[in-house]
């Protein structure tokens, strides 16, 4: 845990210095909302349609962060430095996953109001706690699979292609669960709660992929 904190602190410092990841994710999301606003030729969307647009945008924006997660390690010798240290290798997974979770949370802090501004019709007032809970759960799944895919992709020459080609199909269950859970919350019913069935699907997805990623991550660092 201590090692993971050391790596996380370094990663956050690097991101604060370079501002390469989170601003790109935020800009992408806002641009997509604006594009949908004009492309759909409608002033507002709501319900399942709004949830689908929002979730798909979020997942693709997350890919920007996922693709960059290990770039500094690959390009600046971070992998070698880490592998030379007498530490548990899963600390790298924990640190990278936590960093990505923080990036996603920051993205959503801006993306949710931006979505409301450009596309979403109904007020979020009473539904906001539910939205936050669903997104917190969705982020866990995105982070588990994203960190794993990023560690695979970074070992290849075509890392920018591998991320989306492997990552997006694996995120489809998360897309379905998040969109279905957000649908009623974006419908404008006062103080609505997310449907339990889809929250359970999301939670199950999170647990399965977190365990899978944790189990295989070690092998990805092997020569």
């Amino acid at each position, binding site marked *: 845990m201590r090692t993971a904190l*050391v790596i996380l602190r370094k990663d956050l410092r690097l991101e604060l*210095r370079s501002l390469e990841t989170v601003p790109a994710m935020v800009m992408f999301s806002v641009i997509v909302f604006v594009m949908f606003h004009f492309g759909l030729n409608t002033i507002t969307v709501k319900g399942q349609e709004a949830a689908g647009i929002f979730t798909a945008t979020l997942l693709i924006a997350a890919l920007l962060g996922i693709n960059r997660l290990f770039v500094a390690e690959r390009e*600046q*010798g971070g992998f070698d430095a880490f592998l*030379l*240290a*007498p530490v548990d290798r899963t600390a790298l997974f924990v640190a990278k996953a936590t960093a990505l979770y923080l990036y996603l949370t920051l993205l959503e802090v801006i993306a949710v109001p931006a979505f409301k501004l450009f596309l979403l019709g109904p007020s979020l007032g009473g539904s906001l706690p539910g939205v936050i809970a669903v997104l917190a759960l969705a982020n866990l799944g995105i982070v588990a699979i994203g960190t794993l895919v990023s560690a695979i992709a970074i070992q290849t020459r075509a890392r920018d292609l591998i991320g989306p080609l492997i990552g997006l199909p694996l995120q489809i269950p998360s897309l379905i669960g998040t969109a279905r859970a957000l649908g009623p919350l974006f419908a404008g019913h006062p103080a609505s709660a997310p449907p339990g069935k889809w929250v359970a699907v999301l939670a199950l997805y999170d647990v399965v992929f977190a365990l899978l990623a944790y189990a295989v991550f070690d092998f990805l660092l092997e020569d």
Partner: protein
Amino acid sequence: MTPTRGTVTMSDEPAIRLTDLTRHFGERTALRKVSGEVPAGATLAVLGRNGAGKSTLLRILATLLRPHDGEVALLGEPLPRRAWAVRGRIGLLAHDPLLYRDLTARENLRYHAGLHRVDESRIDEVLAAVQMEKRADEPVRSYSRGMVQRTAIARAVLHRPHVLLLDEPRSNLDPGAEALVEPLIGRASGATRVLTSHDPQAALAEADLVLALKDGRAAFFGEPRALSTAALKDLYA
């Protein structure tokens, strides 16, 4: 054979033992049946043309690459099976300085100190040793190549490694800086050293043993004085 030189005491127990070490990269064989022993505290100079397998050997000893055949033991521990037991006792100075360009020297060293559980007071110690205290709080990307190399040396010795793997350790260093880093990575460090150099004469001058690699094979392994000028010339022909 127990080489002795200078004030360093070397034991008979080999710090490094290679037995028919072989490593492939796809179809290409980078190292083929390389054998030899290096006593603790000794310096092994690895010579050979570009692509002869020098860096591959260093990366295998650093536990970053697996041998595909043969056996490697470092500090008595067989690799890669017990690699975890020697990590933290190896200092690697490779072509890549293993430093984050957007972090300062001090931040980089703090990160490595965290990974190796080294007390932070050691950071000031190594920064002073390479005379980087004044620029320690500036990002590495603003450094000259020589300053990057000095910081990389500070990084490599931060955790007081028992084995130093030095790939062209004095590249980009001016004579003053070379003298400066001598106590850290030179014979006075007391560590078992494996070094490569673009300057064979300089490497031979500080070596107790020489491994000459030609196309991944050991063309020579022994004391420097036993390596003839003709053999050395042939190595780079």
